[in-house]
């Protein structure tokens, strides 16, 4: 008796599945697409940005402002670090997924995750350099070494100190200060040295933009006040005054800068 009922349910299930596949699998997305293209054409197609008729990107996706060797261009505001592919790859969004105490993210922090040359836990970081006490050393191929073993080879500079993995937060902070001509140990805004969840964050914080403004002004031979005014003008406040955070859209402000020239 029960198998008869189950059989009837199975037949009805198959018909139901056919119906929902046709209606919801094909009808629903097409209806939404039609309405979206009709009413929200720009957004539905990815908020694309054109200059001189050429597609240069999307207002909602960050992009890199680097030269062909991958070095940041000083005349442009720089976005946050990115873990999408090799950086701001629209086809492979993603985060670092590194835990908050992972040495690849925070470096070797004394007493927390430090290891000695033999790979055993140690109270201090044997790889510390004068500039970076949290230095994570690299091997001759340039890869970071987080579990040292006796006999491991390391890259060193001419003065004998370790060459550190450039992707830890302390190293990014050092590089950010150098690039922007800031004093050693000057505070660095946290968004400038951390990667976003999508790897495609189009925005930076206002502080990050203000810290970059003098460098951008120098590279473009503009008065620094003019660039700072631009940052203030281009800062998007919180939505409805309280949702989210104030942001500066990097592509947008760089477009404005190019337009000044």
């Amino acid at each position, binding site marked *: 008796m029960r198998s008869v009922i189950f059989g009837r349910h199975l037949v009805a299930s198959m018909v139901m599945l056919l119906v929902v596949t046709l209606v919801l699998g094909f009808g629903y997305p097409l209806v*939404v697409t039609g309405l979206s293209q009709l009413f929200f054409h720009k957004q539905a197609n990815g908020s694309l940005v054109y200059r001189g008729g050429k597609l240069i990107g999307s207002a909602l996706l960050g992009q890199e402002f680097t030269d062909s060797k991958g070095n940041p261009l000083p005349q442009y505001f720089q976005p946050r670090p990115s873990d999408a592919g090799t950086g701001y790859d629209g086809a492979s969004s993603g985060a670092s997924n590194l835990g908050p105490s992972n040495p690849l993210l925070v470096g070797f922090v004394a007493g927390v995750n430090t290891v000695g040359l033999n790979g055993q836990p140690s109270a201090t970081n044997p790889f510390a350099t004068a500039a970076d006490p949290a230095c994570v050393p690299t091997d001759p191929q340039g890869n970071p070494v987080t579990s040292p073993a006796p006999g491991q080879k390391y890259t060193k500079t001419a003065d004998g100190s370790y060459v550190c993995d450039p992707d830890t937060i302390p190293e990014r902070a050092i590089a950010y200060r150098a690039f922007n001509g800031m004093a050693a140990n000057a505070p660095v805004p946290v968004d400038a040295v951390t990667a976003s969840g999508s790897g495609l964050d189009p925005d930076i914080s206002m502080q990050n933009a203000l810290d970059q403004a003098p460098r951008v002004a120098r590279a473009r031979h503009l008065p620094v006040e003019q660039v700072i005014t631009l940052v203030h003008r281009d800062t998007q406040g919180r939505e409805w005054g309280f949702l989210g955070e104030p942001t500066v859209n990097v592509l947008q402000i760089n477009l404005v800068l190019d337009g000044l020239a």
Partner: protein
Amino acid sequence: MSVSGWEQLLFIVAVTAVAAPLLGRYLAAVFRDGGYGAPGDRVFLPVERLVYRTLGVDPESSWTWRAYALAVLALGLVSTLLLYAILRLQGVLPGNPTHAPGMPPLLSFNTAISFITGTNWQAYEGETQASYLSDTVGLVVAQFTAAGVGLAVALAVVRGIAGKARTVGNFWRDFTRSLVRVFVPLSIIGALVMVSQGAVQNLSGFRTATTLAGGTQQIPGGLVASMEAIKLLGTNGGSYYGAGGAHPFENPTGFTNLFDLLLVIVLPFAIIFVGHTVISMQAELHGNQLLPTSVSQVASNVNPGGNMEGKETRFGPEGSALMTVGTMGTTAGATDSALDSYTPVGGTGAFVAILLGEVSPGGDGGGLYSILVLALLAVFVAGLMVGRTPEFLGKKIRATQMKLVLAYVLAIPVTVLVLGSISLVISPGTSSILNPGLHGLTEVTYAFASVANNNGSAFAGLAANTPWYDTTLGLAMLIGRFAPIVLGLAIAGSLAGARVHARTRATLDTAGPTFVAFLLGVIVIVGGLIYFPMLILGPIGERIIG
């Protein structure tokens, strides 16, 4: 927490408080038994009649819990098989501009179960391993189906526990009406709102842009908003907050009673929810203590501050944590930030929301039936303590019900702890872990807790597409979804038609604040303490050592 953080949290609570009764009233009208005369009949009724005729079913018949459960399982079986076939064959099927090859058997098994159960755990690479056809037809249909089943089962359980009839309703009618009148219209509206805010909805593939600096960038397209809408609504739509409306109103006293109970527990649950949301937001705003002090994590008007690794500038640390804990609590598991990089305390907020499972506030209908089952448990324990006959809505709770309730309560924790522990001691389990130390343990246990509770979010640092994890996580999803459904229906069936006793002075009051506080205690003990050793070894240990 910052002022804007509080504002965002209060905004969500206020919107929910306003929207829930409105949605609830609509749901109540739709699912009232013999409920013709609901809003929108003129549009929806002909559609529904057409569906019933095509299926050859009588929408007016009402079934026993066994027939109802069998129909749910039959639909689950058939849709899993279809989705499995689509995923295996996507390489040769049309609608595959990105040339995704057919998925391997174990990955297809895992993915099919994941979407049919509403878990949406994704062990595959979205960009490269799923074709457009799989995404928009296979997965979207599964998301609608899962949502419809969840709401339908909740209705049946409520009918059994609170109603006078011996039957629990008609699955095809509940399922059809929940799709036609709730999920499809809301998804269309939701998708359009998302598009207006910038979500993509087009039929073009990648476009290549020439960047300002002279490089190139691929800008993805696709049918994104239509999928996002049902992804979010499907686990949320008929949720706990809609519970007030999920009543078939067969029995006015029974339902009034139940309605009162739900009204009183909404508040404490909101408090639990707000509680661990605030903790998580606070922790993320506080930032990562292992960074050098010269990295400024102090929030201000010009700096979001806090732990920004894996978070977007526009959301900031507090907005990200709010979204995360919110979707964990509703079992949607749709994050807007990388959970793996949360601080230990911030991540625990999300973890606890998952472990409390379907009750804080819970997912698509699952929230409602989980709470009802836990309420039965609380009634029984309270009854034993004060020496009164345990009764719920006038129906006596006996050994039959308690056995089923215990099986219900234990099914998920046992699955999580057994499979999680095995994964931590054998090499197919441990070799997938990305981060060292206690954080790695959290990655594994979180994965099992997440899928067994139909959540699907990940502490992503686990390479989950391996034979071991595809199989065991798939198994955990099946148990986590269908054990509660079948047991919940069985409990409802065992109470359906039971004699309703009049209230006397000896009746335990199940609508008062005392009982609600007691229920909260039971939930925390049942949901929390079972997992406590795991939390100590994972995030709590990481916090102490860090």
